[in-house]
């Protein structure tokens, strides 16, 4: 038994950690205002406080802490993208996850059990080869496996279709994994709070005071806050919030749905996803099988669920693992994703001098929680964008320097 549990058990009272202090009064001014109390905003706050000595930071969250896409995503962590710029960035993200529990002194349960993406067509196999070649070149563990390799990695997969849904091979990404999403946010929140960062829940941004090319203050339902620097990290609300500052982002919002089964004894070790079936499955440490797929087919700012998406995901799951017919679904839910034209995020400068963007995270943001926070904190502290973020600039849409990750994002996020 770990020592800490022993201490807990032998103490008379519950050892209160006070991870999240109650929301304090808003001060009139902060050096940095972070809009969005999700994983990204909290990670940035932590990095500002711990590594850049900036603790006059307010994190403004309109609802409850990490209740948006941080709470709703299916926690895939991976770096098997297509573009070298994307791979370099996400690779740093995976590396930060590997030591995140120690960094936060909070067990985020990073479970690096690998991700297996399945191909049912030659075209998909070709794209896998592209990702594998680029991934290997960039130093990640990404390789194409054949049918035999797929069977060895996931022996319970149904390999006997024949026809258009036959599994031809897969992309095996040994670096892939999952983590407990809430724990990531709470860990960052606890660490940031301990260093003086203020977290304001139920604090909704309603507008900006812009003078010239600077944001003077942020207007909230709890009053006005003057700010040195501002970061927008509001997930599904990024378009809306940026627009209040007069910045129109190339973003469209779509619901992304997911669902979970009742807890089962472990039978699925890796993340499994299928490009053609638009379905992926992963078994959590609670034993629940988390199932997700593609975004909804039309724009919407709503977290309502649909029966058709659930039926579709069930079909895909039963195709891959026919014995799941008798397994019961417990819950379905949705998040609002902010999709960019090239399936890569928008990070860095905005047209306003002191307004910074951590936006366009679409369906793929959770895995970047540590690295986006780290690099955006660096950006805000230094007042300039580091090289690793430069390719993700908003201007890329004016210069056609797109980072097309569509093919690496469609099946799993």
């Amino acid at each position, binding site marked *: 038994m*770990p020592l*800490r*549990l022993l201490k*807990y058990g032998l103490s008379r009272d*519950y050892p209160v*950690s*006070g*991870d*999240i*202090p109650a929301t304090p009064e808003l001060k009139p001014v902060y050096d940095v205002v972070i809009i969005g109390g999700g994983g990204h905003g909290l990670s940035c706050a932590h990095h500002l406080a711990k590594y850049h000595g900036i603790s006059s930071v307010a994190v403004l969250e309109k609802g*409850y802490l990490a*209740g948006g896409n941080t709470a709703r995503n299916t926690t895939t962590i991976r770096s098997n993208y297509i573009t*070298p710029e994307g791979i370099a960035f996400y690779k740093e993200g995976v590396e930060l996850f590997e*030591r995140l529990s*120690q960094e936060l002194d*909070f*067990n985020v*349960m*990073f*479970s690096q059990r690998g991700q297996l993406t399945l191909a049912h*067509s*030659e*075209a998909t196999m070709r794209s896998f*080869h*592209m990702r594998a070649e*680029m991934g290997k*070149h960039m130093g990640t563990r990404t390789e194409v496996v054949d049918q035999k390799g797929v069977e060895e990695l996931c022996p*319970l997969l149904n390999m006997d279709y024949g*026809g*258009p849904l036959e599994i031809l091979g897969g992309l095996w990404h040994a670096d892939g994994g999952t983590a407990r999403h*809430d724990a990531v946010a*709470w860990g960052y929140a606890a660490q940031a709070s301990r260093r003086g960062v203020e977290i304001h*829940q139920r604090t909704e941004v309603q507008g900006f005071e812009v003078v010239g090319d600077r944001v003077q203050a942020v207007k909230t339902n709890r009053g006005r806050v003057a700010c040195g620097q501002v970061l927008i990290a509001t997930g599904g609300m990024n378009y809306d919030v940026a627009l209040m500052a007069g910045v129109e982002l190339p973003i469209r919002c779509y619901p992304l749905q997911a669902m979970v*089964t*009742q*807890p*089962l*004894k*472990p*039978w699925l070790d890796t993340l499994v996803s299928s490009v053609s079936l638009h379905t992926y499955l992963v078994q*959590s*440490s*609670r*034993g*629940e099988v988390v199932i997700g797929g593609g975004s909804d087919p039309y724009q919407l700012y709503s977290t309502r669920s649909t*029966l058709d998406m659930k039926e579709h995901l*069930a079909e895909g799951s*039963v*195709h891959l693992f026919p014995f*799941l*017919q*008798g*397994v*019961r*679904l*417990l*819950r*379905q*839910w949705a998040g609002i994703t902010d999709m960019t034209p090239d399936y890569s995020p928008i990070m860095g400068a905005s047209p306003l001098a002191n307004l910074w963007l951590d936006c366009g995270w679409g369906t793929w943001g959770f895995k970047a929680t540590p690295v986006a926070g780290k690099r955006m904190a660096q950006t805000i502290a230094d007042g300039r964008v580091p090289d690793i973020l430069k390719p993700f600039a908003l201007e890329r849409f004016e210069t*056609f320097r797109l980072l097309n990750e569509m093919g690496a994002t469609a099946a799993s996020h």
Partner: protein
Amino acid sequence: MNRLPAPFGNRIDRSRRIRFTFEGKPFEGYEGDSIASALAASGQWVLSRSFKYHRPRGILSMTGADANVLVQLPSEPNAGAERTPVSEGLRVSAQNVNGSLERDRDAIMDRFGRFLPVGFYYRTFMGPRRDSWLKFWEPIIRRKAGLGVVDTKAPHRHFDKTHLHCDVLVVGAGPAGLNAAIAAAEAGADVVLCDENPEIGGSLSYGRYDPAILSNLSSRLKALPNLRVLTGTVCNGWYEDNWLPLIQGNRLHRTRAREVILATGAIEQPAVFRNNDLPGIMLGVATQRLVRHYGVRPGRSAVVLAANEDGYRTALDLLDAGVAVVELVDPRSVGDAGPLEAELRGKGVAIRKGATIEAAAGTSGNRHLARVRVGGSWIACDLLAVSIGQAPAWQLPCQAGGKVGYDAAAEMMTITLPEGSVHLGGAVAGTDELPDAIGSGQRAAAAALSRLGHAMAVEPPITPKSVGPRYVQPILADPKGRDFVDFDEDLQVKDLQNATKDGYREIELVKRFTTVGMGPSQGRHSALATARVVAEATGRSVAEIGITTARPPVGPETLGVLAGHHEALERRTALHAKHVALNAAMKPIGAWWRPYYYGDASGAEEAVREETLAVREGVGLLDVSTLGKLEIRGPDAGEFLDRLYTMAHANQPIGRVRYCLMLNEMGSVVDDGVAYRMAQDQFYVTATTGAVARVYADMLFRNAEWRLKVDVLNLTGAFSGLNVTGPKARLVLEALESDIDFSRDAFPYLSGREGTVAGVPVRVMRIGFTGELSYELHCPSSQAPHLWDAVMAAGRPHGLRPYGLEASRILRLEKGHILIGQDTDAITTPDELGFGWAVSKKKPFFVGKRSIEMRARLGQTRRLVGLQFPAGARNIPGESCLVLRGGAPVGQITSVGYSPSLGRHIALAYVHVDDQAEGSRVTVKCRDGELVEVPVVAHAFFDPTNARQEI
């Protein structure tokens, strides 16, 4: 041993005995029994071990989904024992036990509970090494996680789906639902009434009511042909526009209702005190259901905790069933002695008011309830029936947009629905006693009917609601714990309190930190108590705290019933049977089955080589039916194509065929094909197999936007295509009966002709994907097999061979022809392909024009070129291998293959724009990491002057 005589047991058929096993031991029940009732009848009360502490658990509500009653069936984990019927030979076992249910080695966890405070796993298991979690702790925890075991060898089951449409769907066939459905149907509406139970009646089927009420309603029901009753059918969700899944066994009725009446009742809530989870402690309704539905005596000696009339009725029911009621404990203050109280007292039952159950204690190992503590003294009993209050079944109403509130005065959870097509009736709407429920159901029907334009004959009267408090129970946190709020997740009062101390004060954060409400019952029995505990701990009101969002499904549902019966879409060309008869190796490409080559797998390589050489030296025949085939008709047809494609089509002469290249608005290449102008106002256009669906939709979209005078037809399935290609192709066609002159002068390259060949109407185009003399014959699909046979017969003297996709790919690669999607990606421009020749400089507009001009100004970085490997090269890079420049990736191989005509490997690849010149050498990284240098060559590897296709 606990079985009561008839008339108790209205669900069971005592003439039909059913044998099954539980935990390997034989048991017997009756037809109609659930697993739980049959086991209870035999005195087996423990059904499971709890999630965390492995405490014995048993029947709680007899309705459902609590982890308490989840059992393992051979091919079904987490089956609800309270609802799953027994069947002959069924093997049932307990879940989540280490050893057996009776002797669970993990029961020791109950003693270590103090070492496992809420959220403990976030604070530990991290060391001593960085990978300790992954390598050491997580495997241990994963072994303890989960409940049931999935049978990975489960036999296939058949599920299906149907559609239902109705004017009014009534969910719940209790008193309110029955009255609502009857009223709506009597007014002429088309009504569906569903209920998850095997019989109608709801509480009328097990509660202490006059049986005549139900039989009367039942006979009215039967007289209504426009009222369809679906029992054993769960309405498991509400989705936009009244789209509701009704699950009946293995069938999913996808139901569209114009109006919906939710009469889903109320959920009786457990009480919170120490050891409130012992088997033998159950809700009042559970005892009534056991008695009336199954004829099972729920205990011998009972204490009843009652804070409402239902509790008093439960006590009377228990007496009727021969259970000794030791005492009725009523937490409400003295007063309000109703007739039920008098009746109970008359039967000698002691009633203690202003008191509650403070704690319970169990038999050895906590296997059953032994006694309860009231007012400091212990009372021996083996049954505690709890009726302290209810929560409206909020799941469906909340999914339909309802908001949950809390009436502090009445201590009652309330639901408010927005005005619209969903109505509430009965207990879910807050009614209490029977007449009130009936009236509420009738009023819901009246509201639905008036929206439908019907009227009810008799306007239902407003009945007064009783105003007694609905959820009377102080939550008794015990210093020693085991006062469970959430049985599924083994959560006690202090766990919730401690979470708030750590800052998890919002209800959603409490849920996430503690996992309260996340188990199989999804908060049915814990949400209200949780809200109260959190409200008290954070100094806020229950209304401010609220409950977490109710998401579908209402109850657990199998993936099988959601998936239904599903087959993958696959398409076959009209010539499929011909290929199979010729022993073709058929493979799916997208949805289409296509011949790869003809012959056995053992001779595949040789077959492909021979097929390739047949086209180069003689003549070959390829089924190109999967090509997209579109017909554009109308006076603006030329203008339409001019706007859609990069080349000029408006001025294209009739009878000519032109290459067409399609860009998207960003200027990226999205499709190519050929356009054959058949008449001034008629073009026949091909599109690539994979893109045609999108191209067709885009054409219609543009047409709607531009509103030109054209019509677009998708003939992809209606027409088939046969490509006759090779130096001897003309000989073959000239040997066929035809009104078309196939001679070089009469039918030159890049022209098209209409006519008949072998009696089949055809459109013939001279185009050259293979680089050889080619005639592509398109004809109605119904006649394609006949045409195929005729071409095969005419070709026989000339050595014609059908060839497959593999040979086709090599033939096109030898010519450097691109495949859209393989040699292009989402950002490829015509310039990058060297396709400047295919882009009109004169047209004022075409889709993508503005963007490619701008992108040309921004500068080009890469170019698609040919690479030719030396004969006998040792390491040939595969598709997608990277092209490096100064160690950095600048492009990749897009196509590679061995050319039998050239005797070496050739490839298409993106290289840095400065390396595009013929003779440049580029570095390619092979799959194994080796770097090879390859020379750049001109696009067409074979017959660079393209003389052969024009002969």
